[in-house]
């Protein structure tokens, strides 16, 4: 018997709904404990809102929060950038998006599909309030944009969900602990220095066996699942490979480009940045890496509008006077947001034009290298690699062929395709931290498909995917499978390193 998309009969029958079930059962406890663990106060302090009414705990998809807190606004959306009616109307309800939507794949429920969410957005414009149920289904969306690729009607779901998330963040009163957890993420991840500091204690917590003790103490073991997920995701912080502010081109200069160093990328994958700069220089680019902050991608994808716009403005300020031909990005999530700056800042008279001009120069690094054309000599790397499409590269930016070409231009390199390539790995920005259960299921699904390729290594273009896939493989006892960014692979080839350096 074969199983497609999980779920089904007999013993496997709860697979499809596993996550849902667990959410239902544990939601309340988990959230309370989480609140406690991050200092949001005791459950009593958090108040009535954490205690879910029996009914709501049993929701098919419900995190177990009641509506008693009065978080109920009607209609769901106000006039400030609601999901646009015109864009909603592009949806003809054909359902072509269903099979590529990760949450529909997991739950098989209409309201956790793009078509269903768009339906809810439409209802939210005039007919229905923004309440726990509605927010829950928007929260569960990974924002992977696989539906944008699948949609034959050209529905711009990316814009719709971003607008919706903005409304949710402004108008919906999250429970105290949820709010606190999210706040913690956004005080941490966009700031590489803080992230670097925080990653240490998390290791410590693990090394000292606090987790094991928590686990053994019965109820406590299943409590801080969000924190646990976060901790399990973050690997050891490698020694930082610094990138110079200016790196001269090797040989005749073909372009002057700026590189974004990213936040997660900089802290956990600094070798990727170093490789990117070396590759760009080797291909004839003068590379500029000014002192810089977060590009705002995480905040944008989470609907934190003001915060994201501030990050965007600062990033523009940092780069725009450097006289650059292109802004080259090696993290898919960052690149997709920076390509959107023009849209995001459309209402800002001071920045609208500048943002538009900025976005036009943004390129993913593989996209840019293919546009430039290969010049430096590629040395052979005899290895078979599975290429994983990062959603924010493939779906959000439409960049699929370029990274594959980049790899295939290396002699000896075999590129394997992964089954269900269009389905998200579950990383999705902050998703695997705020929705750990479905993220875990998706991660393991992806890991299984990767293992099935029989490839010796994995190549992917986004730090979030790397963390997620690494964590999933580790859980499944396969942490031996090496992983690299296309730039690390190309760098090894250009430098003539033996293939073993990639397989360590």
């Amino acid at each position, binding site marked *: *018997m074969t199983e497609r998309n999980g779920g*089904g009969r007999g013993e496997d029958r709860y697979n499809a709904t596993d996550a849902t079930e667990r959410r239902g059962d544990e939601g309340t406890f988990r959230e309370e404990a989480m609140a406690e663990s991050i200092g949001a106060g005791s459950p009593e302090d958090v108040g009535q809102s954490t205690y879910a009414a029996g009914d709501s705990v049993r929701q098919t998809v419900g995190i177990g929060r009641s509506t008693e807190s009065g978080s109920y606004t009607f209609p769901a959306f106000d006039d400030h950038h609601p999901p646009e009616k015109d864009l909603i109307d592009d949806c*003809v309800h054909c*359902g*072509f998006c269903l099979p590529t939507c990760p949450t529909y794949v997991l739950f098989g429920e209409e309201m956790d599909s793009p078509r269903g969410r768009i339906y809810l957005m439409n*209802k939210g414009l005039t007919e229905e309030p923004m309440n726990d*149920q509605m927010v829950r289904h928007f929260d569960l969306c990974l924002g992977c944009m696989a539906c944008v690729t699948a949609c*034959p*009607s050209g529905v711009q779901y990316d814009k719709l969900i971003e607008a919706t998330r903005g409304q949710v963040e402004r108008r919906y009163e999250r429970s105290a602990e949820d709010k606190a957890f999210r706040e913690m993420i956004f005080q941490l991840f966009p700031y590489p220095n803080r992230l670097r500091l925080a990653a240490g204690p998390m290791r410590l917590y693990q090394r000292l066996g606090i987790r094991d003790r928590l686990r053994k103490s019965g109820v406590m073991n299943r409590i801080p699942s969000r924190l646990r997920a976060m901790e399990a995701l973050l690997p050891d912080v490698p020694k930082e490979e610094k990138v110079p502010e200016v790196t001269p081109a090797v040989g005749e200069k073909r372009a002057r480009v700026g590189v974004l160093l990213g936040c997660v990328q900089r802290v956990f994958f600094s070798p990727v940045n170093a490789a990117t700069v070396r590759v760009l220089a080797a291909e004839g680019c003068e590379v500029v890496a000014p002192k810089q902050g977060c590009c705002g991608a995480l905040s944008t994808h989470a609907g934190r509008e003001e915060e994201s716009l501030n990050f965007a403005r600062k990033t523009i300020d940092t780069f725009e006077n450097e006289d650059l031909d292109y802004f080259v990005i090696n993290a898919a999530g960052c690149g997709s947001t920076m390509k959107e700056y023009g849209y995001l800042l459309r209402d800002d008279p001071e920045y609208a034009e500048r943002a538009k001009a900025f976005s036009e120069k943004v390129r993913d690094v593989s996209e840019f290298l293919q546009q430039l054309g290969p010049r430096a000599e590629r040395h052979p790397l005899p290895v078979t690699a599975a290429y994983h499409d990062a959603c924010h590269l493939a779906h959000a930016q439409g960049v699929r062929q370029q990274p594959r070409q980049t790899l295939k231009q290396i002699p000896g390199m075999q590129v394997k395709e992964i089954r269900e390539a269009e389905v998200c790995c579950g990383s999705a920005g902050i998703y695997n931290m705020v929705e750990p259960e479905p993220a875990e299921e998706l991660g393991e699904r992806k890991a299984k498909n990767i293992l099935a390729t029989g490839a010796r290594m994995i190549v992917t273009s986004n730090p979030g995917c790397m963390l997620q896939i690494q964590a999933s493989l580790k859980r499944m006892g396969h942490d031996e499978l090496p992983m690299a960014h296309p730039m690390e692979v190309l760098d090894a080839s250009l430098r003539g390193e033996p293939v073993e350096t990639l397989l360590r």
Partner: protein
Amino acid sequence: MERSRLIQAMEDILGPEGVIHEREQLRTYECDGLMNYRVIPDLVVLPVNAEQVQKIVRLCYDEGIPYVARGSGTGLSGGALPVESGVLIVMSRMKRILEVDLENERVVVEPGVINLWVSQEVADEGYYYAPDPASQLVSSIGGNLAENSGGVHCLKYGFTTNHVTGAEVVLPDGSVAHLGGGKAPDEPGYDLLGAFVGSEGTLGIATSITLRVLRKPEAVRTLLAAFKDTEEAGDAVSGIIGGGIVPAAIEMMDRLCLEAVEVAVSPGFPDAGAVLIVELDGPEAEVENQFERTMKICEDSNASEIRVAEDDAERALFWKGRKAAFAAMGRVSNDYYVQDSVVPRTELGAVLKRISDLGEEYGMRVANVFHAGDGNLHPLVLYDGEVEGEAEKAEKLAGDIVFACLEHGGSLTGEHGIGEDKKKYMPKMFTEEDLDTMQLLRCAFDPHYLCNPGKMFPTPRLCGERPGPFRMHPVQKAGLAELF
């Protein structure tokens, strides 16, 4: 039964994760692929196995609660439209391929399995599942069974009914029946499976379906021919079929449709008044010979351009353009109303002319994409639902198109089904006696009228009951049937 008690009873069967009852959530189920009709169901239930389906149906039967089965919700006739105060049984979690038995060329699947998965499952062994509705990457086998779905390759290979050899079904009284054959291809007795396929969910709910898979043909050749207008393209179609060639598929798209598709998926189709996609498959030698003749016929019909797919990628591109046609209408119009009439192939030209005249009369745009080989038209009436009265006007125009097709000896539907949308036209095509005879069959399966009630027939009525004075049906009078 009180709603809260019903919810409890369903949760006892399915667990809380299998029951949806919050208002906002239910609203996302209020329509299927046809948005013109909307009804909020009382409850949505999501069974994961046949046993649960049986228990749900039995509960409904005992309590007299009407219910509707739904697959992926992509139907275009409102067949899966919920009924008020009824239960919607969604099969999306029953999605396992249960058995692959290629020695007997059969695959057994649960109803929620997506059509395309079947072909993907057996592709490596050189097999495929022939019925290929445009929605094949999302529509479910259960839904295909209910609607007797067709697809572009039905011209040569037949509809779903020709590819289903057996089904396990839960009957409206909650009993389980096995219709059709096991491994042997045919069984004696009434063809109940034949009655069940295409019954639009009114006779029961299939819980496992046995499909016939075919060996992939040795050779496949596909061409795309551009014409000045649909009339010339129609001539080519007649020429090909009249020439004794049975292509695997002949599809036509008119200018408006081509424009939409170009915006949506950029297949790079020629700028023309009509485009034909012709696909031939079979043994190499036969295909080669017929392909030459097909090209010649297209040339003789003044084709302005003929493109031959050089490889699988190019063929896939041709089909991508065709299969995205409906959904692509969203690019050129806010809303559209699709019809699904069938006309005799020889009437194609006349009917297309009439449709174009009707469009002008109403001042509305009508795009045409259709299975030209078997005369199955899909006129798409484009309108803007936000403009007051447009929707009604579109529906009226669509109705006139149906009447025009009937006048030319056609039928109401080729493959989308009657459902909610076209039931009102049934008396235009069938006599009262015809409809009553169909009711007799329905009543034999569903005497309490609980299984997808209100669909397919113009006037819902209880079995054995008819408006006006009682009049015995001729079939009954003759002692050939009795009312249950």
